[in-house]
């Protein structure tokens, strides 16, 4: 039965296995970028602007990844923005007020983030309080703590070595090296894996499809980053984080169980999956993401600003949903959310270039979210 796959042509595989929702979003994204580029007289797709855009979308990207994990498990996180803000306050207080070293500050910030996640996860998993409520409370409490601690004032400026974590660039030589090494590592990993699994997964799909994607991303990276200053540090940090979360979701027992729990929690429990433990774990991972995003936001703004992280959780939910994550649970992938995050950031970026008011930006983002979900639902209807 599995050798049926062997006869399929590449075209058939493309048509058969592509995630249509994501494909659609990619097409929309490409068309939009083309349009933006024309309207902005070529500024939008300049290497400098794309580099900026990627840097700007980094924080949203990593928070969206964690949001996918939680939504797939039928949870939600409304506290993400506030948690990220609180971590940024920790970073600023440590480095500016208490003058701790960079390394120690980072460790403490990560630990604080993880504790915030673990606290909420424990309430959800141990006491069965709905995540919506727990994280709504978390949103109020964490931002409140930050305001009390700072008198709602901006704490800064943070030292330059902190700023470097987001705003710095790897040298072009190092960037070339890293992109090349990553390209080789991913291609060989995909090749070895596809070879091993070719009995069950068509080789064209298991390897060549991935190869094309990896090659495309590498080529764009060479073009953009070598054309402008090298790889931004924020992009490096987020890329590492996102790759880890993606690996967890698609290759580990933990990630698999998250999909199982989200798909049917009762069945998961009866089949021996420890639901509570996994939900707790999911929030802890989200906590680590608060840590990373909090450091990045402090580094990017050069301070802990009281408005930092405002609406971040809602944008992350939007990005996840635009990228095909289903609110009924059990469905959603990290790359989809990244594309969603990129799309939302691209709108921001373009409208800033065009000097459109930020109020209209919100209207447009809201509309895109609605359209994405509407497409999702109508595609689903057609399939069934």
């Amino acid at each position, binding site marked *: *039965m*599995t050798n*049926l*796959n062997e006869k399929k042509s590449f075209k058939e595989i493309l048509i058969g296995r592509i995630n249509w929702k994501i494909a659609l979003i990619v097409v929309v994204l490409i068309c939009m970028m083309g349009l933006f580029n024309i309207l902005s007289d070529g500024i939008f797709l300049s290497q400098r602007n794309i580099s900026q855009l990627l840097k700007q979308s980094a924080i949203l990207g990593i928070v969206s990844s964690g949001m996918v994990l939680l939504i797939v498990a039928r949870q939600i996180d409304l506290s993400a923005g506030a948690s990220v803000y609180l971590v940024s306050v920790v970073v600023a207080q440590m480095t500016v007020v208490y003058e701790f070293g960079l390394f120690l500050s980072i460790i403490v910030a990560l630990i604080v983030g993880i504790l915030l996640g673990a606290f909420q996860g424990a309430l959800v998993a141990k006491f069965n309080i709905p995540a919506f409520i727990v994280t709504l409370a978390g949103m109020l409490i964490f931002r409140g703590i930050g305001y009390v601690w700072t008198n709602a004032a901006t704490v800064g400026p943070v030292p330059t070595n902190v700023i470097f974590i987001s705003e710095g660039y790897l040298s072009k030589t190092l960037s070339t090296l890293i992109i090349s090494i990553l390209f080789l590592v991913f291609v060989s990993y995909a090749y070895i*894996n596809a070879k*091993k*699994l070719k*009995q*069950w*997964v068509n080789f064209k799909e298991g390897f060549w499809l991935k190869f094309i994607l990896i090659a495309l991303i590498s080529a764009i990276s060479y073009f953009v980053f070598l054309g402008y200053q090298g790889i931004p540090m924020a992009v490096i940090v987020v890329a590492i984080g996102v790759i880890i979360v993606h690996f967890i979701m698609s*290759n*580990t*027992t*933990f990630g*698999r*169980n998250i*999909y*199982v729990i989200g*798909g*049917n929690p*009762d*069945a*998961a*429990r*009866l*089949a*021996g*999956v*420890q639901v509570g433990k996994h939900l707790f774990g999911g929030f802890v991972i989200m906590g680590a993401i608060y840590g990373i995003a909090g450091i990045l936001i402090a580094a990017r703004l050069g301070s802990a600003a009281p408005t930092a992280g405002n609406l971040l959780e809602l944008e992350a939910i939007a990005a996840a949903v635009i990228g095909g994550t289903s609110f009924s649970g*059990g*469905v959603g992938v990290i790359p989809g959310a990244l594309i969603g995050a990129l799309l939302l950031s691209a709108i921001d970026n373009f409208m800033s270039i065009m000097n459109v008011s930020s109020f209209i930006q919100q209207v447009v983002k809201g509309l895109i979210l609605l359209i994405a979900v509407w497409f999702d639902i109508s595609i689903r209807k057609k399939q069934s």
Partner: protein
Amino acid sequence: MSNQVLKMSSINLEFPGVLAVDNANLTVERGEIRAIVGENGAGKSSLMKIISGVYPNEQFDGKIELEGKGVKFTGVKDAEMQGIMMIPQELNLVEELTVAENLFLNQIPSKRGIVNKQELFRESEKILNEIGVNVSVSAKVKELGVAQKQMIAIGRALWNKVKILILDEPTSTLSNLESEILFEKIRMLKESGVTCFYISHRLEEILSISDNVTVMRDGKIIKTDQTKNMDEQKIVSLMIGRDLSDYFPIANRTPKEVQFSAHDFNVYHKSLPDRKIVKHASLTVRKGEIVGLFGLVGAGRTELALGMIGAWDAPVDGKVKINDKEYTFENPKDAIDHGLSYLPEDRKTLANIPELSVNKNISVSSIEKLSQLGVINQEKEFTNTDKFIKDMSIKTSSVHSKISSLSGGNQQKCILSRQISVDSEILILDEPTQGVDVGAKTEIYEILNALASSGKSILMISSDLPEVLGLSDRILVMHEGKMVADLVPSNTSRKEILEYATLGQRSS
């Protein structure tokens, strides 16, 4: 014309692989109380769902005439408008709303969208008086007893000028006294010309309340006769008339020592903390033995199983013994880790992960074994899946197909594979052939026989009598939460088993 209210002719209802209702013809008269009896799955509920519009007109073949006119119901609402109402086992009342609001659900008296509370309460008082229920109209439904809730549901039907009322196992959760009150109301309704369909497993009740009895078996109407011509023995023998099909493979095995047992096991009700659903149940399963656990729906078999594996969400009192060691399991994972696994009864809601593939569905329980350091070894996982697809002859176009795209029998084989893949010594299977076509049934029987022959201990909960008789080495029967019989197939009969299940004892 005669007093005929409802006439159904040549009704056929088909589900994939099963004929749920097979060429049924039925007429009832005004003011008649008609009992419908049959084993689980005989087609009673399906037939009633057709009458009450749950299965709308396009889902079945045949004709329905209401008071001489042909009718085609588009849904429950439509059937209700025309005076047919079903009161299901699970009452559809809104627990958090008041009695009055529940009586008028959907049709609350109002003016420009603002509820007229005075009228609502006044009308509700009237209904309550009519059915003789003494509760406050402003009480919340969740504060009422089960019998009172039932009355509220009936009250709602009355207000809707019901012509035909269908009661599905109305007394399954009632005490004797409460049942008596209910019967009184039903007789009152009869006087006022309402026709009642009365579905019940309790034969004494049927004999005391109904005018006529219709017996169903395998989707067919076997016999309809006046109740006064019937007795319990007669009804039971009509219910079980089915031949023991020869598709039960002959098993050649000798069970060894006792491997699994439970002693004086009690399971409490989820919302009524002092009510026991399972009462002092004890059982043993030997190595290499299939023990069939028979009982009617609601006898407490599933609750016993869930209690034993640690999946019951309310208090449980009792321990299970595996190889002479006693355990109280915290959760199903705990049970699996100690060699006890469970196959859920309702595949769709309790077992399938619909969005995931056949491959991922099969490996749910054994994923840790197929991984190193928490990372899934996909090669191992696919190999494992391939093995089960072959061994169980699961028909699927690929390991990547979504489980929901498979037929019921093949889905069940996937879920069974999931359970077998953890390789536990003791397997509890809850209705393993529910919603499975005959071909797949035979295959599942062969798998169970092979498991027992290889030394596993199997407890099979089943409502399918031929299956229980054909497959078990020993048969346990539960009745209203109690273990009432421990029988050997060669030494018993379907009649005896069914008597234990319906009456709790042998009729002399």
